[in-house]
């Protein structure tokens, strides 16, 4: 799954989850193929992001799990404070979960 701002959406992409408006009304169901018309309507109704199936867009700033983990290690190099190490553990957990969800999908 990939969460994208409206300007990145293209007709033919499929919704991964429902799209809601600000009042919580469903504008579009799960697994629906987007059309030009629908994307235009999202703009009009003030939707900002839509989650689509797979990872159709390559985002140049996105890192792999390995890169994320090794950069995390580097940031915490030489840190012994147990509080800071707690935060590091939480971040590790976060990264594993984030990337697990992705692999599951694509």
């Amino acid at each position, binding site marked *: 799954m990939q*969460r994208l*701002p409206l300007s*990145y959406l293209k007709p033919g992409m499929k919704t991964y989850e429902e799209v809601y*408006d*600000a009042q919580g009304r469903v504008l579009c169901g799960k697994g629906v193929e987007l059309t030009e018309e629908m994307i235009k309507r999202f703009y009009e109704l*003030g*939707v*900002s*992001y839509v989650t689509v199936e797979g990872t159709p867009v390559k*985002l140049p*700033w996105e890192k792999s799990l390995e890169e994320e983990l090794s*950069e*995390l290690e*580097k*940031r*915490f*190099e*030489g*840190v012994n*404070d147990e*509080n*800071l190490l*707690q*935060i*590091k553990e*939480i*971040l590790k*957990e*976060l990264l594993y979960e*984030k990337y697990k969800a992705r692999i599951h999908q694509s």
Partner: protein
Amino acid sequence: MKNIKQESINPDPSEKRKEVKKKLRKLEGLPTLPPIIQRLNQMIEDERTSLHQIAEIIEKDQVITTKILRLANSAFYGFPRKVSTVQQAMMLLGLNVLKILIMTSSIFEFIHKEDIGLWEHSIGVAACSKIIAEKIGAGDSQEIATAGLLHDLGRVIIMVVLKEDQPKILDLISEGVDPLSAEKRVLGIDHAEIGAFLMAQWNLPERLIEAVASHHNLENSKKYRKEASILHLSDLLVHARGYGKTLYESLPPFEVRALKYLGLGWGEIKEILFNLEPRLYELKFFTEELKKELSS
């Protein structure tokens, strides 16, 4: 001219401090506020002015309107719906925050151009501050998000107004001096104090000023220790996540007391980080867009 040169060879911190404050008072080197902003300021101060009137004036200025809407729509304020008019932004953000955004918009612009890493850091801290403020119910969370946005304002000022001192600070840091002491050694004052000093000059709310002034030293805060702690913790978490770039190569010094002041345990810290992640993801699109615009 000769005088200045000599000073840089043999700086006296307390003398330098006076000189820096004098410069800040005159705002040398900072882009001057366009007339419309001065006009708006008068209107905002004037109790009789209606929100509608203020919005009308702002909307006449394309540049400021664009800036306000862009900031209001960026993920650190986290509105579920697109903010498309100045009136809406005013309702959602409040006049106080709007005023700050207007007054500081030329500085934000400077941060984008000069130091996108610091800009990313600042909006990351804004988003995180908002999440923490909401979590602990610390009053106007929009205002705290704005404090987060401004917390390293002093760094920007050093880069703009005190340009010639910046290399000396960087030299000391590369020799292993920590960033705050390096600033103090070269300028006689650090970025937290500089930011707060300027915010006081602009008559921004006390709550924001004190939080910014003490974001690296909680002991300095009195009335607004919670707000200072929110900035302090957000600063650490955003560094720890590796979002943006500052003078701290890895992590800034952390005072664990911040957690106590905020009444937060590890379970809550985890929730905060998990809530922050999607915000940072969205913010990345925002800064990348800016980068593209700047390079085109």
